């Protein structure tokens, strides 16, 4: 499994998607000024002015999950792997209490460990792109 340190030294996959604080990396969401509704990611473009950036909790509970068993079509998938080298990966939603439920890739050594409601912790992981570059993206892993 990739280590958090690897992810934190690489250029991010997108700007203002996450930030690293003393207690680890956090996703950046947006809180709508009119009603406090929180969304992820922070909206860009014409509606951005309606939102203020908010640092999201980096711990939460697994809301749902699945395993991507075949290599996704490119585009849009930009992974460096091909049909032969593709490794299935888990993904799902993590509920950040009182804020928002975020979709995320999941780092786990054994897919069978995943259970709805289990505590999850955010991390940054390297993502190898088809153009040969490696960037950091976010993921969650089981907290224990």
């Amino acid at each position: 499994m990739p280590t958090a340190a690897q992810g934190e030294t690489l250029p991010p996959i997108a700007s203002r998607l996450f930030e690293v604080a003393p207690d680890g990396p956090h996703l950046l969401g947006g809180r709508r000024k009119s009603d406090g509704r929180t969304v992820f990611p922070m909206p860009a473009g014409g509606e951005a002015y309606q939102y203020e950036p908010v640092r999201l909790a980096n711990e939460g509970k697994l809301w749902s999950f699945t395993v991507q068993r075949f290599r996704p079509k490119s585009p849009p998938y930009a992974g460096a792997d091909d049909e032969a080298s593709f490794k299935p990966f888990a993904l799902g939603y993590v509920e950040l209490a009182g804020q928002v439920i975020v979709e995320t890739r999941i780092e786990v050594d054994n897919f069978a460990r995943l259970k709805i409601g289990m505590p999850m912790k955010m991390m940054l992981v390297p993502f190898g792109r088809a153009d040969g570059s490696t960037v950091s993206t976010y993921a969650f892993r089981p907290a224990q």
Partner: protein
Amino acid sequence: MTDVHIIGAGIHPFGRTDGKSGLDQGIYAVREALADVNLEWKDMQFAFGGSSAAGSADSMLPHLGLTGVQFINVANGCATGGSSLLSGYWAIKSGEFDIGIVTGFDKHPRGAFNPDPEASGLPRWYGDVGMMLTTQFFALKIQRYMGLHGITPITLARVAEKAFENGAKTPHAWRKQQVDAQTILQAQMLSDPLTKYMFCSPAEGGAALILASDKKMRELGLGGPRMLGAAVRTRVNGSFEVFSPSLDVERGPSPTEIASKAAYAIAGVGPEDIDVAQIQDTESGAEIMHMAENGLCADGDQEKLIADGETRLGGRLPINTDGGCIACGEPIGASGLRQVYENVQQLRGRADGRQVKDAKIAYSQVYGAPGLSAVAILGA
């Protein structure tokens, strides 16, 4: 306001028809519908039609006759067929027209669609990391539902098994080979908990329905099921839809739940009155969840209902009697109309080999991205 009846129905078999365009399959369905009631294209006062990937629906006109008819192209994602039907229903109910046709066709390339993040208003990284797949959405929705309501994988397999069983009895179905539940369960996993046999595929096909006012129907000496109610609704805050990087913590109803309630209210009937139902089964889990979202059972009751065969032919409430999307495939423009075609056959007692005995009230629901649902309720 006048009552609206479906007096004629036509279909081009779903599946793969090499060498025949989507447009030709649509024209075939329209001609079948006209022949069903001995009418001609010039008798149609309006047409609503849709196709997502096989060209503009009104390209049918030079082939059917340039009669000057009002033809409106409809595009509403996977709920295009349901939306065309609703448009035709209103056209007659309003008193503006007496008779017209709703139609749809499609022909999709093989395999899943290539989604474009920007076209969906999403950032590029979302597609880059491999989270932009419709299959994942369906898996994530049923996985949570199974966790909350005690549904197990064998129930997913039984839904697909039933689809192939019904498809084998249906002339317009694509998949006519029966597959048993164990084979379905042990097939290649695409996105846990869904295996390849549990998903429908993009396909081809065409369907057409002729609608008429009560008065016009009697003038023509024809008959046909009455449309008791129909509604289309879109997503609200808190519904779970495809391609959502985040969801609200406070959960809300699905577009299917609100469309269903609206249609029942218009029709003046309730779920307990339904004799046969065609509901969106993009994959096995969708049929299970849509049973509850359409009020046909309580959350969690599906496990026992399906194990007891209650949704099979001969059961208390047969669902997807023509094999649904799993056995017919999903040509977007035609799919919702295929459901209503099947209900018309059931209510007219013409569903040979798969007839639901004494079916009086039939329900259909088509759901599509990015979060809309169309419901129609018919009475014999």
